[in-house]
């Protein structure tokens, strides 16, 4: 990450925190790219005993992307919000890609067995979760965000509470109910499909 792009991300983040919606559109692809790149790096330097942690990934993306001297705490929270969202998008994009590939579209792309490695089932389930989460967002934005941060961003209850500016107890309560809701939603959809 060059200094200039770090400056740019920091500026966009500040702009967005100040209410400039257009800044978010420019920011997202940058965060997305960085997370994507980092995920690769992580895979390659994996060592025994270390598994890929999405939270670590998000943290590192933040450190690399943002000039921390210029941002305030709230900016960090915003960043984690975007990062979790981006992680969700990255995973869901991949998962949807997988899902369609299995249905025939991308079958030819798979060159060797290894290219087919990703769990098709997990992919289907990520897609299902994504759909349910979008439905939840329409009813309760905060609960949806909490799941996004906890599951896709890998943030702890306390971290999530910090980012959202609510108490850990609230996050815990929301999380419990959101889980039950999502679980029911996904089961319902499953049943309807079959």
């Amino acid at each position, binding site marked *: 990450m060059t200094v200039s792009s770090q400056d740019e991300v920091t500026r966009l983040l500040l702009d967005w925190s100040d209410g400039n919606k257009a800044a978010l559109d420019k920011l997202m692809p940058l965060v997305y790219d960085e997370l*994507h790149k980092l*995920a*690769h790096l*992580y*895979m*390659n330097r*994996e*060592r*025994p*005993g270390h*598994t*890929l*942690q*999405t*939270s670590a*990934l998000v943290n590192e993306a933040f450190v690399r992307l943002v000039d921390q001297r210029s941002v305030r705490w709230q900016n960090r929270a915003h960043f984690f919000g975007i990062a979790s969202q981006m*992680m969700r998008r*990255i*995973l869901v994009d*991949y*998962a949807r890609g*997988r899902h369609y590939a*299995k*249905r025939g579209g991308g079958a*030819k792309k*798979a*060159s*060797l*067995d*290894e*290219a*087919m*490695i*990703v*769990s*098709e*089932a997990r*992919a*289907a*389930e*990520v897609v299902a*979760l994504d759909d349910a989460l979008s439905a939840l967002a329409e009813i309760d934005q905060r609960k949806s965000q909490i*799941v996004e941060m*906890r*599951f*896709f*961003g*890998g943030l702890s209850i306390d971290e999530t509470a910090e980012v959202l500016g609510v108490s850990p107890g609230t996050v815990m*309560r929301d999380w*419990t*109910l959101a*889980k*039950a*809701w*999502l*679980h029911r939603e*996904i*089961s319902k959809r499953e*049943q309807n499909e*079959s």
Partner: protein
Amino acid sequence: MDDLFHAALEQEPSGRAAFLSRVCGGDESLREEVESLLTSHQQAESFIEAPAADLAADLIAEKPTILAEGQVVGPYKIVDLLGAGGMGEVYLAQDTRLGRRVALKMLPAHFSQDPERLQRFEQEARAASMLNHPNIVTVHEIGQLGDAHFIVTEFIEGQTLRQQMTSAKIRLREALDVAIQVTAALGAAHKAGIAHRDIKPENIMLRPDGLVKVLDFGLAKLTRVQSLDPDDEASTLARVTTEAGLVMGTVTYMSPEQARGLAVDSRSDIFSLGVVLYEMVAGRAPFDGTTVSDVIAAILKEEPVPLKQYSRRVPAELEWVMKKALAKDREERYQTIRELQIDLKRLAQELQSQAKLEDIPSRRSDEVMQDSAAQTDSVGADSNVARTSADPRTLIIESEGRKRRFILNWMTIGAAVVVIAVFSVVSFFAGLRQATSSRPSFRQLTFRRGTITSARFVPPDGQTVVYGAAFGGRPIELFTSRLESPESGSLKLHGDIKSISPTGEMAILLDCELDWGECHNGTLARVPVVGGTPREIADNVYEADWSPDGKELAIVRVVDEKYQLEYPIGNILYTRPLGWIGSIRVSPKGDLVAFIDHPVLGQIEGLVMVVDLTRQTRVLSETPGTRNLSWSPTGDEIWYSAEILHARGQGKLRAVTLSGRERSMQTEEGALFIHDTFRDGRALVSKVQGGGSRMMAFSAGSQKEVDLSWFNWSTSADISADGKMLLFYEWHSPSHTTPYTYLRKLDGSNDPFRIGQGKALALSPDGKWAIALQEGPPPQLVLLPTGAGEQQALPRGNIAEFYYATWFPDGNRILFTGIAEGHSQRSYIQDVSSGQINPITDEGVIALLVSPEGKRLLTWAPDGRYYVAPTTGTAATPISGLDLGEVPIQWTADGRAVYVRGPDDSDVQIYRIELTDGRRKLWKDHIVPDPVGLMDLEVKPGGIKITPDGRSYVYTYWSKLDRLFLVEGLK
């Protein structure tokens, strides 16, 4: 609503309903909503609790390009990236030492973290590769680069079966051919005790020339979590489905036992291959679904749609084969891959002969949809045909089960961690138990150098043993020994002991052949232990055992070239046409005969089986390298020797119950052969303590013979024209079905270097190529470069079996002997550059040697005589002066005489015989340096090789040394 939910959660579960009806008042919809969320909450448990970390790992790390073109990994230079994914990246690379192209696969770090798993994987991958089977991808190396492990295999041009299936239609004929070749690969692997465990179209490579290669033996071991409690279906499902990296592609081809997380054996591969074959023919997998849970449910419960629904012209026999290969209960499946292979081959032949195969393309799914339009109308394009036609009851059961399993899928990391934790605890206690129990004691009973053929306790007290042994290079003789004394006395009988009845009547084999440390093909006779004259009972007997009451005998004998098991004598219970039947033992109740069924003559791989008096057979074990067996003292197990690898001094005693439950027994190191058990728990066991196949060479100008053996099983093949290099092959151990070819200096001044796989046959006149036989199936002559270059397969023509081969002096042609389909053996000339094959002898006649000027052949005719025949095919002249049993082994440099070996195996003399007048001169009085344990002198050409100038030579002999032990406390 939120508050209600949490308030209700705080209530005791039993009080929640009352609580809700109280607080909701009359608002039924609110109450229902909260109740359903509470139910859902209970089910959710670990749902999405673990962050999507493993998902991220799986999903994102799609193409981590670590190695760039031109980068060097050890001796390998990366040329191109062939593919990548969660199982690592595969590169095309150049082996800079050998100048050949290889495929290099980097294993991702998370697959190689567990050193034990990695080691098991390495063992299996190497073992499979060592099989040197044309249908198994050769592993050249397993290495390490930093923390990452990599596998180097032969590079295969072509595409995977998956690619083939997606890009083109597969005809029934092709489908059968692919499946048959996979059975060949699996057959060889299973024989060596290796199950693939992950047979799927991605692991099957198709070369443009039609050769099929099976990839990734052993890799499945790296990626699977072993199950612990096979009875708990739900939890094993969870484990199987939640393991990171487990793929849909793999699940589709899983056997039911695999899907349940049970231990798998070779029969699992049979199921998986069945799925692959089905998919090739139908264009879709037999058990399909959109999630892992669906597929697993289908594998466990659904019957596949008959292939007829995909193509009306699928023969009924194939349906039957599919049914048997895809049987959910592995006991009802094909029991060995060989059985499946036989059926597939028969089917292929039958179809071919009926010309049924023309124009029956296998159907792709789009055609299928048209075929079964009536069915598919009611379901979406994504639905699977299998489900629509399945029993409606299955459908209901499934949709219920499916929901549950879907949720289970989310219990990700937790489940795997629990499995590992439980496993560690169990292994810890297992270790503890082993440490505290006493080890069996071994007491040496024989001290002389030689081979122990068999040993039995003498009833009634078992304080005396009788054993057969060939000590000090002498023939087999029977000895008796009181256990309290180290001395053995000879019974003055030349034969082997097979059984002793409760009344002290011995069943012995007289005048038998010493065949690899066992006594075979003798005259069965009975004689009391206390002495007397043997009374002969039957000829051509290989094995014998008394019934428990000592009134009847079970025997194995050869009748019409077939091994048959009779009990009592005259009542055939089992026949084995192609292979042989090993050690037989009647059960203590007399109702069963246990025996070892060896499907291939000359190989020790075998199945432990029992047959009852109604001729019902049961396979109990397929452990490789199986020899002697004996009923356990309690009679509820069969103890046998398995996994015998002489060269490594390995050999395990194993036990199997009649229901097939296997375990390995607690023993010491050493290749062990169990001979007998006594009712008090003691056993007689012999331990291999030396021997093998040795090469002795004499190099011109040196003082004495040197032992050039590399490992313990080396066989000489040829000496280079300049007399400096020795070509040989090495089996590593007798249970390996395939050897490697090596070169080393004849004076022994360097370590051998391996030039390829196969049985070495001859070096080219310029020393640049070696012909080797890769035994297949199908067998194949190959040219192995002695320096840089790649192995070249010689076109096989219609030759079904190859024997030996040698070069013409011009280096452009080879002479080989083989059998073409529908013909008897004869010799052929093959042009190396064009591959053209022409017969050079009449059928039945074999050409052995090419004269130095390349114009004459030394031939053997069915009349038993040797001739010199011009290559132009004019009349052959008999060689005069040869005695019966003498074999010409080398032409002299001037082409005027031949070296001939005498007929004796243990004291070979070599003569030089002039072709003009038959005059003979003793060239060498050949004496094998150590006659003890000597089993044979290699008789094949190359077994004794002399340079044309007569100044250097090499020979190969086989020996086995073992000692007998009394073992107490064997469990």
